[in-house]
């Protein structure tokens, strides 16, 4: 019920499908935040598309009363690229998970970012395979015991943000499933970004990997460990903003007590830096979300867009029959009477 002129509400984005995630799953909070913030954009639901891959996150498309396609494992960025290449008038969102985006779909993810396809990619990172019932994912920590790694995972995990920054994504951010203020803020910034936006959302899976992000999600611990990145502001955190980030002479970033280092020594966050190396260093400040970890917009720069939005032929008008006739007759022709 979205007559033009009527303000949209959260209910306009809720589909009639019964949500089937496990009780307490972080996905509920993300769904609610997305449905709650979308009305702000003022885009009618018929011009919004959610495209998903396989995994628990993949079900997201069914719960949004927008257009939606639940695709195949890892391929949502490719499907979304095809749509964005041809339809500049749509707001296209990809919802994916750590296995979907970083394992089976890694190639599509980095190329969608490289091309700067105008899609928003939300990666729900729970550091585990949920839908297939608990195997190690490419973001699972070393030594993690799962059904497929009974003696502990051997392999070094990916940092999704470092990967996205390596692909020189134009918008890279991180937020938390249950942060009802920070999550919509980041979504808002992603929606405002013209090109490809990559948002990692730490998402708790209470069934297979409970508590993976407690140092950030828990109220008390979170206050001490979340390092909020705000463009143009010195990077500092802690309940009393008593800690901060400085850049050493060799370029390394280090966490310091503000009292020792002095306020002027703090690194001022610049999300608009063309060179992604500082954002990369911030992503590596916390290799795992087990201590102080930056959240917020790491990088937001402008670059030419891929596809329909980038060309003059936005409307994609098809040639008429006369032009077709001319095309068929192009080059050397001869006539037989």
């Amino acid at each position, binding site marked *: 019920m979205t007559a033009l002129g009527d303000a949209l509400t959260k209910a306009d984005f809720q589909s009639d499908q019964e949500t089937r995630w496990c009780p307490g799953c972080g996905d509920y909070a993300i769904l609610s935040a997305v449905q709650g913030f979308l009305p702000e954009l003022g885009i009618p639901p018929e011009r919004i598309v959610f495209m998903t891959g396989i995994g628990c996150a993949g079900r997201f498309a069914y719960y949004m009363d927008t257009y939606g396609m639940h695709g195949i494992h890892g391929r949502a960025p490719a499907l979304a690229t*095809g749509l964005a290449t041809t339809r500049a008038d749509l707001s296209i969102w990809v919802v994916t998970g750590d296995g979907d985006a970083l394992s089976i779909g890694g190639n599509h993810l980095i190329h969608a970012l490289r091309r700067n396809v105008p899609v928003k990619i939300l990666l729900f990172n729970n550091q585990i395979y949920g839908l297939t019932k608990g195997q190690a994912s490419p973001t699972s920590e070393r030594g993690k015991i799962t059904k497929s790694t009974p003696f502990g995972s051997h392999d070094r995990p990916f940092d999704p943000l470092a990967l996205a920054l390596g692909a020189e994504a134009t918008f890279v951010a991180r937020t938390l499933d249950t942060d009802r203020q920070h999550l919509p803020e980041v979504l808002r910034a992603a929606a405002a970004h013209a090109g490809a936006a990559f948002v990692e959302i730490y998402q708790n899976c209470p069934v297979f990997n409970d508590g993976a992000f407690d140092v950030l999600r828990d109220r008390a611990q979170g206050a001490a460990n979340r390092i909020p990145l705000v463009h143009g502001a010195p990077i500092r955190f802690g309940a009393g903003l008593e800690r901060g980030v400085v850049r050493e002479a060799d370029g390394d970033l280090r966490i310091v007590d503000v009292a020792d280092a002095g306020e002027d020594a703090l690194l001022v966050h610049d999300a608009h830096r063309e060179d992604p190396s500082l954002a990369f260093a911030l992503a590596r400040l916390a290799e795992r979300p087990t201590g102080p970890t930056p959240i917020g917009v790491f990088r937001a720069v402008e670059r030419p867009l891929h596809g329909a939005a980038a060309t003059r032929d936005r409307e994609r008008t098809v*040639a008429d029959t006369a*032009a077709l006739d001319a095309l068929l007759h192009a080059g050397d022709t001869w006539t037989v009477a």
Partner: protein
Amino acid sequence: MGKTVEQRERVVVRFAGDSGDGMQLVGGRFTDATALLGNDLATLPDFPAEIRAPAGTIPGVSAFQIHFASRDILTPGDTPNVLVAMNPAALKANLATLERGATIIANEDAFTRRNLERAGYASNPLEDDALADFRVHRVPMTTLTTRAAEGLEGVGTRDAARAKNLFALGLLSWLYGRPTDGTERWIEAKFARRPAARDANLAAFRAGWSFGETTELLEVQYRVDPATDVAPGTYRQVNGTTATALGLIAASVRSGLPLLLASYPITPASELLHELSRHEGAGVRTVQAEDEIAAVGMALGAAYGGHLGVTATSGPGMDLKAETIGLAAMLELPLVVIDVQRAGPSTGMPTKTEQSDLLMALHGRHGESPLPVLAAATPGDCFETAFEAARLAIEHRTPVILLSDGFLSNSSEPWRIPDATALPAIDPAFATAPSNGTPFLPYARDARGVRPWAPPGTPGLQHRIGGLEKQDGSGAISYDPANHATMTRLRAQRIAAIARELPPLELDADDGAELLVLGWGSSYGAIRAAVRRVRDRGVPVARAHLRHLEPLPPNVGDVLRAFPRVLVPELNTGQLAYLLRARFLVDVRSHAKVSGQPLFAAELETAILEALA
């Protein structure tokens, strides 16, 4: 000039040289001149997979064959009348294709000790009696070309020698009386920005022509008159790639849907990506995807958005696309997948032709996922078949596989240009919001079993689709056993029902024919030529050719059963024969060939006579 002119009805010329010698270039130009002269023609480029295999070796040989005639012809010719051999390897690699008495024009300058060794010759075949059965003309092409370019500004000896392929073109143009002005204009245009190369190539071309006129080696010039038995109309030359591209654009125009081709580079399908990329603009866009899977995904994403989504690939790429094609079958969205078949398995022989993906196209997906499969018969037929593939995809909301092959995509023939206004309109029939407030059912079906297509942006029709099994009608996720059985049946029925709108299989049968030769795909020309030869012997025979392989035209069973014997020639180990035996319980005999070469009329003639014995 004192030369005699002899009339020929048909001639087969094969240009062969090193891959760096520009044989495809001069072959293509000779073809253009021949087409403009009004001869019927067919061509067969034959080049190595390596871009530059070691110079002078047999794997490095690149050849271009053209068959032209004053009557209608059907194939690029089995055996050349004239072989142009630019080096010993080219001679050695092609000698076996020649019949006794054929003419060989050899660039004797290239028959050096080193080149002879590289080609594996112990002694010079131009000097011993190895070529006694042939009419050999030794022409010092490199020397004559460099001499012709002497004194030209900015042209060094090496640059000049490189133009020797144009010398060969000039000589052959003289030999068969091809007009020169078109070729000279072509050289001028081609090298417009490199005056030195332009002058060297013009000089080489003219030197080749005047060599023919003045040399005493060649006493006879040949004439092949324009073909007279061709239908009236305006013609142009096309290869299968160009015709496919034009067919897709035509379908885009006649459906009003912009076209997106997403492809990943692969031989020989890349040509279509190149071709359509040149037409970017009004309603046509191409993307070079990061991989085969992304390519088909992008095409499907575009189709979801209400566009004509197409992807093209060859053998190994089809394997990778299978999962997404299955998704398209589940989503019931239009998608055109073009498989330019090549010799396999695995990387196989990428530049060689085969028809061995038929059963994969029909069955190569998990689960029950039926879809229409079509195959083009000739380079020009690629236009109509591509148009038909797009029409079926759009009107029936289904992935369609169009089978072409390396032979079709590279071969060219004169093509009667269709009247654009006479092409049928294709109706995408997008869904619109129901006015009476009834809910939108994305999987409700019309009488043909076709579901509504509601691209994003359509107000009031927001809905979700996906790969999970869906409830009949509503499209909601469903794990209900009975519903899955119903949906499987409905998906099969709606594809099978397409048969009702297909034209019946056309039969070309003599009275009293005991044998039906049934073909599909690019062996069309060879089959017709072989059948013509058999008929010339006074033996009655019947012939038919399938464009639609899934679903088959409704009368296929009747046609098969009308003849005591059926022979199916194909470039695989008998895939269509296997299929027809299974479906119709008819004792089909297979004529199978998997050498990477197209079917030849002569070998098939023998097979037909044997089948009749």
